[in-house]
């Protein structure tokens, strides 16, 4: 028997998107499979790795620990929505400049997490940066360049404001 679906409407990166999803569709899978936005990566699927972090009404959340149907009617920002057209966001530029990524799998989650962190706290201390990114795992970089990138992003944002 076909599984019952629910019609939902999400505002994703400023665009109204509609999908018919079963109740159990994770937001991460809805973004990737139903809406074709594969920038959101799926690592552990139980809330540990942080790769799937997106912004829900501006706040970072684990899209693998959220059902798409629960957030019907809400606004989602994914990594695809961070840049201003062709120009990368300050956080994206800082990650590129500081070599804050190697394989890039964890990067979308870091970018969304850090974007929200610096919006709420434009000049974080070292300790605040470490706590802020503590929920995102990276297996390549050893984190040092990611931490540098967060501070550099704060500088860029201050320069451009």
């Amino acid at each position, binding site marked *: 028997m076909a599984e019952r679906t629910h019609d939902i409407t999400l505002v994703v990166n400023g665009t109204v998107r509609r999908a018919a999803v079963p109740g159990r569709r994770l937001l991460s899978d809805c973004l990737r499979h139903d809406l074709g936005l594969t920038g959101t990566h799926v690592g552990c*699927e139980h809330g540990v790795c942080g790769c799937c972090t997106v912004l829900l009404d501006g706040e970072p959340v*684990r899209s693998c620990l959220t059902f798409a149907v629960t957030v019907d009617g809400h606004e989602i920002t994914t990594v695809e929505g961070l840049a201003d057209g062709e120009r990368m966001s300050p956080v994206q530029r800082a990650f590129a400049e500081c070599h804050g990524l190697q394989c890039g799998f964890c990067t979308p989650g870091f970018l969304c997490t850090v974007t929200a962190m610096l919006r709420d706290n434009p000049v974080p201390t070292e300790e605040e940066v470490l706590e802020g990114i503590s929920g995102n795992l990276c297996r390549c970089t050893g984190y040092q360049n990611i931490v540098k990138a967060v501070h550099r992003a704060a500088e860029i944002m201050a320069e451009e404001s």
Partner: protein
Amino acid sequence: MKPPPFDYHAPRSVAEALDVLAAEGERAKVLAGGQSLIPLLNMRLAAPGHLVDINRLTELAGVEAEPDGVRIGALARHAEVERSEPAAAAQPLLRQALRLVAHPVVRNRGTVVGSLVHADPAAELPAVLTLLGGSVRLARRGGPGTPAAGVSVSPEVPAGGSLTVRDVPAGDFFTGPLESAAGPGELAVSAFFPALPPRSGTAFREVARRHGDYALAGVAALVVLDDDLRITSAAVACVSAGPVPLLVEVTGECGHRPPASAGWAGAARAVQDRAEPEDDIHATAGYRRHLVGVLAERALRDAAREALNG
């Protein structure tokens, strides 16, 4: 790593949620923040037939700080309670503990009441509710406790149809690992954390392998002083030290003395003697028992310092 199928319900009112829970009984599970439930579903450790999503019940999102304590609705997220200045002023242990709950991103979604109902003995909030002697308010359809028609029995649950509401004290609420007193058909609508008494202080100390991980061991402490600034009451509640939050009263061990000369070491030994930790991949039972003692002494000293400063 995908959840099993379930029938999804999105009630628009508490009354509607209670109707679904009454109809489906043991087959139904309530979804609030989902930060504990959805991992269980993804790993297929849980497979409820019906999921009752309360995320649209914004009337349950309140955080109300009153002189006697803080009442937290079932939809209030950890981050909202953590940021609430009135809640922190009424009961500082809430913010002290919430900063240790998982990662900031998880706290944006997870709820305080959901953590309590999940009843994980490795979690911080059940220990907090236990130490403070708080309670969880459960509502369900039917039953003998039906209030007079048309009378609202609580701020959260409008009357309309028969309704039973009960407040379960923390000591009775946590019944085992991941087991609480919330029965089939019941919805936890709010929790109440009593306010900090005068001349008293609190602290939460824990050791985790990484910030935001489950604690290997953790201790919440509450110390109350009298007018002469001597200890009249001291107690701790321990995380990961048994099947439910472990409450240990250590007033006798501390002695009716000023904090500077209190029997902290004896209190720590008493806590270690009562702890029933288990071995797992992260730590041995012996190491956890050691940690519980060390953390108890530190938390008690911190709480006493807060009491003197407060």
